[in-house]
């Protein structure tokens, strides 16, 4: 699926919920159910700065597509991270570099993030794009 279609799908899923408590409940479910990163990749270099909770992000390239793996010690953060991974994993580096991320605003998540966490989220997105740029230069 294309990045844009995945984002539309996420927005649709979140549309079902009326209240933010329900949306959080869903994020928590996502956070609990997604096994995201191997412990051997939970290393200092993979930690994303600017998050109040710890977030690790690791990427690999297979057959021209990038796969992301991540984790967080906070479940809601992990739920958010899992949405990012769902959006960007198994995509071509160029598509990731050129993608514009709109589901976060569309589901109203950004207003519900404290500036601290929003900052962390921006750093996650930066790191994802950074991996894509780095991998676009390798075969």
């Amino acid at each position: 699926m294309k990045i844009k279609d995945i984002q539309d799908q996420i927005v649709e899923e979140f549309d079902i919920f009326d209240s933010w408590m329900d949306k959080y409940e869903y994020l928590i479910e996502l956070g609990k159910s997604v096994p995201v990163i191997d412990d051997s990749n939970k290393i200092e270099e993979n930690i994303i700065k600017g998050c109040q909770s710890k977030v690790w992000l690791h990427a690999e390239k297979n057959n021209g597509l990038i796969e992301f793996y991540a984790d967080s010690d906070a479940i809601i953060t992990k739920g958010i991270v899992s949405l990012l991974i769902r959006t960007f994993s198994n995509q071509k580096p160029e598509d990731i570099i050129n993608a514009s991320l709109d589901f976060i605003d569309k589901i109203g998540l950004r207003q519900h993030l404290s500036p601290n966490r929003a900052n962390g989220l921006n750093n996650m997105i930066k790191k994802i794009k950074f991996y894509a740029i780095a991998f676009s230069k390798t075969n």
Partner: protein
Amino acid sequence: MASIFKMNVLNNIESIRKEFPILNTTVNGNKLIYLDNAATSQTPNCVIDSISNYYKNLNSNIHRGVHTLSQLATEKYEDTRKKFKTHFNAKSSSEIIFTAGTTHSINLVSSGFNEFLSKEDEIIVSQLEHHSNIVPWQMLCEKTGAKMKVIPMNNNGELDLIAFSNLLSNKTKIVFVNHVSNALGTVNNIKEIIDKSHSVGAAVLIDGAQAVPHFRVDVTELDVDFYVCSAHKFCGPTGVGILYGKKEWLDKLPAYQGGGEMIDEVTFEKTTYSDLPNKFEAGTPNIAGVIASGIALDYINEIGLENIKEYEDYLLQYATDKLLEIDGLKIFGESINKTSVISFNIKDIHPYDIGSVIDNLGIAVRTGHHCAQPIMDFFKIPGTIRVSFCFYNTTDEIDTLVNALKKASTMLS
């Protein structure tokens, strides 16, 4: 201004709450429950009115003009200094310096100590400190080569004063400790720390940011050398701090910033500095804020610090009992001598997750390391949830908090 006289807080809680407009706002569709008072307390009408009144009727520069407004503003500003002198029982008003906050006050003193330290010297901090009472001194150590020693704490979050005695020696030049820990609420036995430090000739700075809002501080009785605090923690505006310093020390301490107001005579060859307190108040100060801080001080004194303490102790006990009913809740900082601060975690749920969920329910708490990472390292946790009460909080609010925490815990377990 509110005409509340000495009274029991509980019987007047509704009229007190009416003085704080922000308590009627809603957050995410829920009535705000503000339990982050250790970070910043809310502002009563009399303080807000004082700021607005200043700009409507008094605004002018102080200490400089012959004109009436300037003189009126100067008078109010200097009257405020007298209020703090009286409140803290300082010997003279010139021992009260207005700064931008606790952090600024500490930096003013620590940078002055640059002149008094060499690399053989030692300075002593405690494990319970806010980063603003650690980092300026680390910077001082880097400049001077002096060494920093740390007073350890026990599992209850209390300082080990026997270990402290062993750290003291004639190499010790200054000891800096908070009166009350912002992260745990522990009230430290600063009198003992001050007396022991003086016995080896060391100066003492006490960070009173978390003490001044909750009980009366007498700097003469304490015999402390420097005592610092921030107005925004006792219902005053942000950006105003108070530095009390003993005259002998303030005379010795070099000026911190150069500029207008702090000089006696300026020529390009040499400038001589003015006397205390102006020596440390270069430039135009936060005049409106300082005057409003004096109004905030009047306000808490009208309610009465004894009444405030009695009521806050009651809230602390009530909340501690209720919180401990929550399955898997652990409190960090269990000294019997505490202000109305409770730091805790529930099971192994990340404090940030709980903070996010209950924020949705309109409840403001602090999560994280509370600018006191060494404390979190001691307990080997990433952070805590911290609730901190002010005299306008209620047991109903605590009940709502407890229900919200139970809900969050179920969602997140």
